[in-house]
């Protein structure tokens, strides 16, 4: 984000500590004193943040905690039901399936979306000319609106032998494949599209990190007679460890909440093979025309959030040394 930092760095090489000449306004005083110090104006300026966060973030978060122990429909007053919602969710045979599917999605996403961007980034970092073109091409799919990408790929995935991908497969004597129309191949098909849509971003992250690799180590390795592969293995990758770990966690957090692809590609089918946790939450809450099981939906989302919070905490721990 050099665009942000350049003016900042130009005008303020080091952010100065709060000026000692600045009057301390945080004084215990009368309301009149508060007013004279501009307390009201401050409050007015803070109001958009307080209102928007209050109503659309803090309040719903609190409400989630309450709703998870209530039976809430839109007709009658909410009733306290203790942990019934959690029990209901944990006893739902679909939960196990959704968790397994979500993990499967995450695993496949790692298999497809982890090594390839890394290899591409390493290769691109060695490009002397037209690096911008390389990155732009890699990033282009990220810019395509996700819904458009899914609908387009849904057409590509047409399972008849005249489908786009099946035609291509036919050129080399393969297929036709059922793609989305089969319980086994549906999930990999979703992940393939999701990887296509997201890999460009990962490439850009790796590229940025590769720039920061300490080059004197390459020279040291060369003195030891290391070839290209050994340099990558012993110098490049170890230095990328931090960023590799971060993309790993980010990817897991992202894939744990996957919704768009299964919802639009397969509706969770065939035979629930692509039903993910977030889709199950959606089904609980919005699957019935006569009012959803909002308690169960919130209970499940809190459980998912618990898992993600652990990951987020790990993530923030790892990144903190850099941000302070």
């Amino acid at each position: 984000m050099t665009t942000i930092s350049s003016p900042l760095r130009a005008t303020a090489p080091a952010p100065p500590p709060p000026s000692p000449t600045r009057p301390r306004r945080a004084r215990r005083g009368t309301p009149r004193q508060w007013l004279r110090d501009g307390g009201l104006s401050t409050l007015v300026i803070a109001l958009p943040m307080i209102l928007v966060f209050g109503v659309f973030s803090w309040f719903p978060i609190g409400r989630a905690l309450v709703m998870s122990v209530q039976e809430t429909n839109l007709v009658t007053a909410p009733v306290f039901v203790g942990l019934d919602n959690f029990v209901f969710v944990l006893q739902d045979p679909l939960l196990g399936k959704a968790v397994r599917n979500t993990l499967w999605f995450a695993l496949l996403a790692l298999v497809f979306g982890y090594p390839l961007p890394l290899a591409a980034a390493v290769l691109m970092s060695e490009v002397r000319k037209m690096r911008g073109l390389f990155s732009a091409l890699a990033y282009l799919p990220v810019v395509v609106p996700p819904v458009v990408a899914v609908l387009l790929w849904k057409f590509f995935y047409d399972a008849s032998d005249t489908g786009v991908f099946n035609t291509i497969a036919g050129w080399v004597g393969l297929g036709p494949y059922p793609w989305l129309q089969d319980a086994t191949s549906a999930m990999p098909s979703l992940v393939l599209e999701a990887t296509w849509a997201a890999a460009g971003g990962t490439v850009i992250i790796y590229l940025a990190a590769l720039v920061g690799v300490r080059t004197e180590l390459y020279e040291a390795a060369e003195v030891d007679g290391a070839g290209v592969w050994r340099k990558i293995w012993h110098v490049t990758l170890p230095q990328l460890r931090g960023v590799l770990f971060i993309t790993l966690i980010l990817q897991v957090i992202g894939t744990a909440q996957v919704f768009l692809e299964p919802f639009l590609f397969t509706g969770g089918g065939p035979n629930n093979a692509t039903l993910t946790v977030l889709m199950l939450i959606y089904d609980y809450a919005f699957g019935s025309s006569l009012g959803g099981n909002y308690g169960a939906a919130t209970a499940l989302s809190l459980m998912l959030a618990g898992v993600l919070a652990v990951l987020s905490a790990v993530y923030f721990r790892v990144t903190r040394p850099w941000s302070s």
Partner: protein
Amino acid sequence: MKSAQKRAAIALVGVLSVAVTLTACGSSEEPAAEPTGPVTIEVAIDAGLEPEAISAFEERILQFEEVNPDIQVATKEFTWSGTTFAAELAGGTLPDVFPIPFTDGRALIEREQIADISELVAELPYADQFNPTIAEAGQDTDGGMWAVPISAYNQGLHYNRALFEEAGLDPDNPPATWDEVREAAKVIADKTGQAGYAHMTQSNTGGWILTTETYALGGRVVEGEGEEATATVDNDATAQALEMLREMRWEDNSMGASFLYDWSTINQDFAAGKIGMYVSGGANYPNLFTQNQMNPDEYGVTVLPLEGDDAGTLGGGTLAAVSSAASEAEQAAAVKWIDFYYISKLTDQEAAVAEAEIAARTDQPVGAPALPIFDQATYEQQQSWIKDLVNVPLENFAPMTEQMFDQPVIPEPSVATQEVYAALDPVVQAVLTDEDADIDALLADAQTQVQGLLDRS
């Protein structure tokens, strides 16, 4: 500051809505005999209509306003959808008059989430002439009609006449048994390369069609009503239907390559000539014709083959309901609109002809058969009024119309209908996408799940 304006705007919206709510609450007293002063109602118009259909609708509104000078009619795009209906109901964003499927009527009435218009409906001249099985969908337990049936369908076997001919089959002589369905599907798939028989599987439609097939083979997925409803998903007829699907899919390979169809996508592929036969509501024709531009000459429909004791055709339909937020005057106006727009074209010669003329002029289908909501005589009389305006190939409907009145119509499961269907979707998907699917095990699981759904509701 801009933000101040925005906040003021929010506050203003708030005040207005509160005012509206207060008005709505304040007027829930005895029904006034006649609405005093002009009243405006918002009525549902199907989403995604072609401009011609919209202008036809607007023409009807003008006619209505001429007869009822006190009533102003505004339109609001609304197509019932399972995922958003509950929210629109709770959020109060429904129009004053809106259609709902038969399957939701009972539950909405029980919870009083739609307006009680039964006294207003009782005054309509045809109030006691509804086909009793159909009227039930919109009645409370005492027989008061809260929601008016406006159309009904029975399931039918739709087929593509062009594909039949291409495959060397006689389109005037469609399959009459399920064995013949299977044979025809195989011939179509072998000769034309298209799907011989396709099946909906998504968004509760898989369960809907599986239930239809179960009924046609003499089974039921739920027995009993209300508190006593028990799941009977694990029955021979359902197993037989699934076995038939398995054979067509995996032995005959006659079901094509797409197994994630819902109602609109299967219609799209059928209209595009990719499907030989499929089961769906008998009243699909307008959708195929207006929204999917199917060539009418290629369209054919027949009744479902019924086999076994107790076999029947699944039937359902649409009710017109009035928003519970509507004031007395708005309710009265809403019932007048329902009478004018939805019903009079079925019971009144002048209205029937007027409606048909507009439809014919704007290239909407006229004369496509549907299940009568009154008796067969009323229906046939109505068809005779408009017979000069009919613009659909009636002879293509003959296999259906010549037999449909002889078939028993069985209503959909009355409790948690959509949830039961949803639970059956994966069963159909499993059979169609997994060669080794264990039908007995699938049905046993679904049985437990459906019973759980029934117990909870």
